[in-house]
């Protein structure tokens, strides 16, 4: 069973905002990054589920812009990744400003089924 969580997140929200894994490749605001560590669950016959707490951070020099993108991403994920293959639920959120750059962070629990 292949981990499709990252690929599917990217295809679902990658057209909304410059979107990267772990860190931005260009320092042009706004942008978003995501990262996660998958946990694999198995029966004796093989993997049947992959679960991951996915951290998704939106960076912008304007809070309203960062928050708006974070909400657009949330809507896209909840609509596009609640299917027969994926279950997505937001589990935590935080917001902080460091040296004038806002980081709006949402954490999702995403489960990929067979």
């Amino acid at each position, binding site marked *: 069973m292949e981990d499709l969580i990252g690929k599917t997140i990217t295809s679902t929200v990658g057209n909304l905002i410059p979107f990267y894994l772990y860190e931005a490749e260009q320092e042009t605001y706004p942008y978003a990054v995501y990262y996660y560590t998958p946990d694999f669950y*198995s029966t004796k016959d093989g993997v049947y589920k992959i679960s991951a707490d996915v951290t998704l951070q939106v960076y912008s020099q304007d809070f309203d812009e960062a928050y708006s993108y974070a909400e657009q991403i949330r809507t896209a994920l909840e609509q596009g990744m609640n299917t027969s293959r994926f279950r997505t639920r937001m589990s935590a959120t935080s917001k902080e400003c460091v040296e004038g750059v806002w980081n709006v962070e949402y954490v999702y629990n995403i489960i990929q089924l067979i």
Partner: protein
Amino acid sequence: MAAELGYNIAFKIGGKTLTGRTQDDLTITPTIKESITKDDAGNKNQQVSGQEVTFSCQGLVVLSLASGETNKLTRDEIVEMALATGSSAVVAFTYRPSSGKQLSGNCVVTGYSESSNSEDEATYTVDFKTTGALTFTTPV
């Protein structure tokens, strides 16, 4: 030393594994008769008259199989087995690691339970007890 990985050990009913299987437990409990006479000078004697052999299997509730998965029992088939009575309740089993000897014989279901909550996959536990003679041989 090569320890056997758990997923290599298969408990089968009628040649089929239980679908969604996550754990198979085998328990062999000797039936022991204890005796003591005055001549034993206080030392008890133990005589094994037989064994009680049970299996406890756990897995995910799976209602339908993928195409081509003909070697597994679905949840409905397991429940039907648990509801059987009389001679229909006696089923043939095998229990074997990836190699080595196989334990085989007949068994009956002694318990079936399902567990479901609002977060995780539904799971089942089904318990078996052997009936009649058992064989412990290397399959040809």
